[in-house]
């Protein structure tokens, strides 16, 4: 029996107007009904363009030069009516804010149906049906502006689902969501795929969130489809390559296993349990195996003080401690600091912040951060992470309580004057970039903080070298790629070497390679004795970079301490490595620790 393909892409090449380089080059693929396809690849590899080609935005909306064909359910998207394509292919975009047309969830869901002329009775049925199936009914009377990011993305999904498309295309829909909202969103997507047989095409950087859902992974590189196959085949294909979009658990087993590399945490955990059982069978205590590794330590007195409730015998930690002496952050800081410690970099005392609409974003936060610490602030959306760090450079003023920077209460200090000591990079790096060239961008910062003119050239050169953007020194920042812009924005903050660096979601929407580079820069900056504070949803990134983790929820600090203690103690706010080794080797949170633990078990 002949296989029916719902989406057929043949030799598709596409170049955006005004560009010389094609965004897609000779891409061919076909998708069968019910397939869940993950589009992976670095930033600028063509994922978003391919998504837009599937629903006709390329070339209908963008123009440009196109060759080859895209046929969805027999419709050629280059020549078909927008209305016909909209009925067949539904698309959910990256930023929920940019795709909401109306101001209420019900109207938003009905919007596409109205556009395609669906009659009222049918419309009502479909709207109610998708609201119920996506559990949106309780949001019926809310305004779109009152919804969280995750809820907005669900409304966006519902609005395309109501049009009964055969193909659902999603372009990084979870990039702005916290891990729990992202998990919830993707699980619903998978259940739609399973139950309704929808073709799902998902472009995503954070493959660990969805790799296990995919029937097929398509990897794009430079506009070409360089791989297409099952996740297991993808893992095999990735062996020996410098970089491949794989979840941490798969990367962990990639070098050792010859067959059947685990693709999910569940499989990874099973494999580790199997290895642990074998080690015990041959009479070797796994703990002894681990202790033979010179670079890891089991138990140990200093660890006992940090890991609450865990058996010190089964702890595997990196021996390297960057701080000679650390404060036990689990202790209530109110009992620790009353005066100002010369090592104390930032201190908050009973910090409260209430927004104009009455939202209590911070509720009595007591916190001490020492000079040279690398701290990650994690927690769900709306937990108060950003509100907290915006107090460190005076962007927000406490409703109650105090913020002390290097022992000085900053309530009367201006943001501009605090910037010399505390640099902050916000969620959108584009907000940082207003000058015409990269060099003038950096000069503007140095001028603002009053750096002598004689030193500026040297400082700019050093920063450009550090962040590997020297070749772009005379380029307009707006002409650079997403990852390059991120580095220029970071350079504009780092150029005057502020003693405290605060970054708010620096890994949002960037690929793994850019993320690895960023982690390296930040570690180097921290190693120079600077304090780095990172607000992030990316727990893998936080674990790799930071030493200390602060978990926030409902405007309060829920947990604060060594990353091993905080992440290992959390069910959801932890890394894939930790989930895999839980019960076998406690406290494993980073890639290096996981590899060492695995070596020890093997």
């Amino acid at each position, binding site marked *: 029996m002949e296989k029916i393909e719902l989406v057929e892409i043949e030799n598709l090449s596409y170049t955006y107007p005004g560009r010389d380089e094609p965004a897609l080059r000779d891409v061919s693929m076909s998708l069968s009904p019910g397939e869940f396809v993950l589009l992976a690849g670095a930033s600028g590899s063509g994922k978003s363009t391919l998504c837009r080609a599937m629903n006709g935005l390329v070339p209908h909306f963008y123009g440009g030069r196109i060759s080859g064909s895209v046929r969805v359910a027999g419709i050629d998207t280059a020549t078909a009516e927008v209305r016909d394509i909209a009925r067949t292919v539904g698309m959910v975009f990256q930023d929920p804010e940019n795709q909401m047309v109306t101001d209420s969830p019900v109207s938003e869901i009905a919007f*596409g149906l109205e*556009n395609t*002329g669906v009659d009222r009775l049918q419309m009502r049925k479909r709207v109610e049906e998708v609201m119920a199936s996506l559990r949106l009914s309780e949001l019926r009377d809310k305004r779109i502006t009152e919804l969280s990011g995750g809820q907005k993305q669900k409304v966006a999904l519902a609005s395309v689902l109501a049009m009964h498309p055969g193909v659902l295309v999603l372009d990084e829909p979870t990039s702005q969501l916290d891990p729990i909202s992202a998990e919830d969103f993707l699980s619903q997507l998978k259940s739609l795929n399973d139950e309704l047989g929808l073709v799902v095409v998902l472009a995503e950087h954070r493959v660990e969130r969805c790799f296990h859902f995919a029937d097929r992974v398509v990897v794009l590189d430079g506009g070409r489809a360089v791989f297409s196959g099952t996740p297991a085949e993808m893992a095999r294909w990735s062996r020996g390559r410098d970089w491949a979009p794989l979840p941490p658990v798969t990367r962990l087993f990639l070098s050792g296993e010859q067959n059947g590399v685990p693709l999910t945490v569940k499989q990874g955990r099973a494999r580790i349990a199997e290895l642990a059982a074998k080690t015990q069978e041959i009479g070797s205590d796994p703990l002894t195996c681990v202790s033979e590794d010179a670079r890891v330590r089991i138990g140990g007195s200093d660890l006992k003080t940090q890991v609450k409730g865990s058996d010190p015998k089964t702890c595997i930690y990196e021996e390297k401690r960057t701080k000679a002496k650390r404060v036990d952050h689990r202790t209530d800081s109110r009992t620790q600091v009353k005066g100002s410690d010369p090592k104390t970099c930032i201190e908050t005392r009973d910090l409260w912040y209430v927004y104009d609409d009455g939202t209590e974003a911070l509720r009595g936060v007591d916190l001490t951060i020492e000079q040279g610490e690398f701290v990650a602030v994690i927690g769900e959306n709306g937990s108060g992470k950003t509100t907290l760090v915006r107090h460190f450079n005076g962007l927000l003023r406490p409703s109650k309580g105090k913020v002390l920077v290097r022992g000085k209460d900053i309530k009367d200090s201006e943001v501009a004057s605090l910037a010399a000591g505390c640099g902050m990079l*916000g969620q959108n790096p584009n907000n940082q970039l207003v000058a015409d060239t990269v060099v003038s961008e950096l000069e503007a910062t140095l001028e603002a903080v009053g750096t002598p003119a004689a030193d500026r050239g040297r400082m700019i050169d050093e920063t450009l070298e550090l962040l590997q953007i020297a070749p772009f020194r005379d380029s307009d920042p707006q002409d650079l790629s997403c990852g390059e812009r991120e580095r220029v924005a970071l350079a504009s903050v780092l150029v005057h070497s502020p003693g405290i660096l605060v970054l708010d979601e620096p890994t949002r929407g960037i690929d793994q390679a850019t993320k690895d580079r960023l982690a390296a820069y930040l570690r180097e900056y921290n190693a120079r004795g600077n304090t780095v504070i990172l607000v992030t949803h990316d727990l893998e990134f936080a674990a790799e970079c930071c030493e200390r983790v602060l978990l926030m929820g409902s405007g309060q600090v829920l947990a604060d301490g060594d990353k091993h203690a905080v992440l290992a103690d959390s069910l959801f706010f932890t890394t894939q490595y930790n989930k895999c080794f839980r019960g076998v080797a406690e406290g494993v949170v980073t890639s290096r620790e996981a590899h060492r633990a695995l070596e020890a078990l093997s």
Partner: protein
Amino acid sequence: MIPTFRKKKCLLQALHPATTLTLALSLMLVSLITDNPLFQVAVIAATAMLAVSAGVFREWLSWWKICAVVGLMTLIINPLVSRYGSTVIWRGPSVPVLGHLIITAEAVAYGAGMALRLAAVIWVFALVTLAVDPDSVLGLMRGRGSSSALLSALTLRMVPTTMRDAGELLDAQRSRGIALDKGSKWAVLKSRLPLVKRSMSTSLDRAIGLAEAMESRGYGSGRRSRYQERRFGLLDGVAFTAAGLIIAAGIAGVAAGKLSFRYYPVLSMRYGALTVVFLLAPLIMGLGMIIISELWKRSNWLRLRT
């Protein structure tokens, strides 16, 4: 931050959007056709009562700043440019364009009357913004009107987003040490000019994103159907009647000269027993809406007839 529409359980939001708009328009209309400052005060008071009935009085009141700015400008400009009035209170020097400055008490009073009228219109507009769902107004429109209504609804919806984007941009620059508020006004303006380009670029990116999302859901591809089809109920009839009575009171008051108020050449007002009746008309309507609204909240019978 200007407050915008929020869904509430109140009669004004439960009425057909056309009804609420008619009610608001009736207040706006009578404010425009009468010169009597007492009647303008009555219109503002009636609007305040409607805001109370809709549970948005605090938000409605916060528009006073806009009213104050616009009113103050009228109050200053009118006496400077007007040459009418017989009670001269100040003679000034000759200035280019305006000539000899003569301020009369009547011109000041006229400026104050105009300021009240503008305040009445602005506050009615505020009520519509706060109590009428923009999406339901969009649902009223057909054909070309729907595009304009959609544009207005989108603009309203994007206002908070754009303001947030602008705030984030300013914060990002401040965080780099760039002092945006220091020095003379020219220095402040100069330091903010480069941000305009970035702000425009962000807005453009958002606009493109939105246009993409709309096109991918078939917008502009042909005849549209409508999800919302609101029917008129008993209370819509009551509200329409109230709106009609207010308009009738305004027109009758002006026609009968019972609401007449002359600013020039000297201030004069004709009044009688009927003047009070005409002045009370908007207030009675406002009070009536508060009472009906409270009854509506308590009575299933009324709610089922909305």
